[in-house]
């Protein structure tokens, strides 16, 4: 018997009981569809937020670290240069790359190539007497002296953000003290009372806030762009700057540094065996905080998903078992037609795999459909909060991200089919065929 014959007979069983098959597919598909929707949505929010936060640096995470002149140096021998060397080593250990950053006054100067993603205009258009910069909306609103109440309506906030964008990008702004900045682009960061992406900050109630509130916008420093023509005098900063290819690497680095950020009280309480006072933070927005928050979200989701997947698998298993139980007569007929037990088992594995495959496709379609509906229903709010939080022009946002958990759910559905057959092997016995056929 060829493989195709197993699937032909299995498929025939599905077709023969269309209504029965449809009910099974819908029941099983709905349970797994909800899980798939959750997975797509969480990953979608996380990916989109982190992409927006790191798009300025082409996906890299910019981290600056400081070895402080710690307050307890009187009591212990302090070697700041050795501490800096240790920080550099740690950057390398965590997969980062140390970069040399200069300062112009109080502002940091970065190579244009490093922040290419944030530059919206041609740098060559910058006037000779103005310094090209990247800045977040909050800084630009101060420079332009455009004020806005945090209680203002969402539409007003978005209009203000667009006004700032129009008046700043590609324009020269003279700030207090007479310094002239030419704004090459806008960096992400909290603006207009939006400390997170939660739509509630815009006065909208939305269930997506469960996820969006985990996106910490943070702030961004003003970054001067060195396009090679920078004539002003700069000095190399004492801080250790580094780029990390992934948010995960940056998160691990920052987490370890945080263990070595002691103060006098820590020293007195003897909670500080290494006697270090290090600090590290991201320069543009808060990708690391967001990543950490989503680790928590994923943990909760995984616990719920495992529970639901187990329940879903048990429901699938019992449903499939009932289906096999109803087919006693067909199974007996197959035996009487000369089928071996292995062949009958094969036909039923193919049958249940077919049902699982249909349920998987249904659950995938349902999951994608639910996510699309959630996106469409929240389209305006998402557009507004992204405009404010990331300083981007108004654009349609799609929160949709693939995650390997989806494969786990689909795999689980498929595995249920052979498991059910194995647990019901006694149903495929060729004994008492006459009674079964009657």
């Amino acid at each position, binding site marked *: 018997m060829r493989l195709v014959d197993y699937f032909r007979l299995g498929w025939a069983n599905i077709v023969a009981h269309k209504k029965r098959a449809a009910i099974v597919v819908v029941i099983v598909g709905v349970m797994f569809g909800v899980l798939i929707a959750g997975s797509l949505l969480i990953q979608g929010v996380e990916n989109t937020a982190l992409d927006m936060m790191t798009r300025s640096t082409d996906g890299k995470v910019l981290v600056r670290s400081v070895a402080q002149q710690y307050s307890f140096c009187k009591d212990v021998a302090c070697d700041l240069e050795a501490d800096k060397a240790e920080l550099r080593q740690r950057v390398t250990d965590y997969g980062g790359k140390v970069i040399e950053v200069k300062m112009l006054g109080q502002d940091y100067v970065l190579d244009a190539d490093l922040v290419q993603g944030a530059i919206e205009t041609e740098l060559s258009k910058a006037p000779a007497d103005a310094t090209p910069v990247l800045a977040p909306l909050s800084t630009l609103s101060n420079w332009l002296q455009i004020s806005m109440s945090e209680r203002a309506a969402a539409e007003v906030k978005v209009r203000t953000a667009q006004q700032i964008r129009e008046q700043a990008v590609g324009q020269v702004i003279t700030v207090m003290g007479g310094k002239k900045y030419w704004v090459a682009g806008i960096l992400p960061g909290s603006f207009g009372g939006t400390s997170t992406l939660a739509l509630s900050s815009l006065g909208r109630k939305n269930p997506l806030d469960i996820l969006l509130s985990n996106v910490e916008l943070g702030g961004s420093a003003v970054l001067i762009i060195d396009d090679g023509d920078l004539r002003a005098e700069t000095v190399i900063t004492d801080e250790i700057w580094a780029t990390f290819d992934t948010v995960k690497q940056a998160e691990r680095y920052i987490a370890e540094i945080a263990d070595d950020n002691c103060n006098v009280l820590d020293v007195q309480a003897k909670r500080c065996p290494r006697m270090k006072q290090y600090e590290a933070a991201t320069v543009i927005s808060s990708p690391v905080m967001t990543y950490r928050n989503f680790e928590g979200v994923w943990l909760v989701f995984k616990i719920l998903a495992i529970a639901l997947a187990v329940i879903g698998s048990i429901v699938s298993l019992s449903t499939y078992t009932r289906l096999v139980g109803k087919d006693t007569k067909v199974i007996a007929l197959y035996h*009487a037609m000369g089928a071996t037990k292995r062949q009958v088992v094969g036909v039923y594995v193919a049958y249940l795999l077919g049902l699982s495959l249909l349920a998987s496709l249904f659950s995938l379609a349902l999951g994608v459909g639910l996510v699309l509906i959630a996106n469409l229903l929240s389209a305006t709010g998402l557009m507004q909060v992204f405009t404010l939080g990331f300083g981007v022009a108004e654009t349609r946002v799609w929160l949709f991200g693939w995650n390997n958990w989806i494969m786990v759910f689909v795999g689980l559905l498929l595995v249920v089919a052979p498991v059910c057959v194995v647990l019901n092997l006694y149903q495929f016995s060729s004994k008492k065929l006459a009674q079964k056929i009657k």
Partner: protein
Amino acid sequence: MSIHLKNINKSYGKKQVLSDVNLEIKTNAFVMLKGVSGSGKSTLLSIIGGIEPMSSGEVVIDGQDVSSLKGGARADFYRHKVGFIFQGFYLQPQLTIAENIALMGTFAGVPKQERRERAEKLAEDLGIVEVLDRLPAEVSGGQAERACAARALFMNPEIILADEPTNNLDPENAKNVIEMLQKIWQDTNTTMIVASHDPMVEAYASQVISVKEGKVRGEEKTQEVAENVAVTEEIDAAPAAEFAESEA
């Protein structure tokens, strides 16, 4: 292919259905298992076909005890030795008539093209070639019965077992079915065993075995069959009504 039934006993719980049945069915016979509903004739047929276990005894076909067959040998027995025509057809509703006819071939690993050719040939012989690609629900009762017969014949079995093939058919269709079975029997040289309470079947049988209260009595009537005349002799003196009364 001779069939020997030795000391067959069958009971469902405390109810004895067959009691000490001893029987020999000769090669190429057209046998009728006759009896009223509940007499045990269908059970006996199923025991001969190896699809019903017996409480004790032996069914020996070609020197082989059917009840001792296991696994692949059992499947081989169903594939090559016997062909079943079940009461109520049991055509798979989702398969076309051609696929139903060729079902045994599918399990036996007969290539698809060959299965189709064999199904077409059988359908042609039985006059159902025009419904080959239809589903069972789209054909008449008579055509479904012929499809069942074709399915039973697909692997050229040596024994054909038919359980109440004329049940629920009108007299004309019933006659057609019996004639079809007789033609199959004559054309294929098989041993045909038909469990039925239909007197019409008796007219075509070479051997009639009466089953009453779990016991059997049999008699050959080869001559009548050869001449294809109506039955002239009651094998069991008791009329059907009497069987029914005794069952009750």
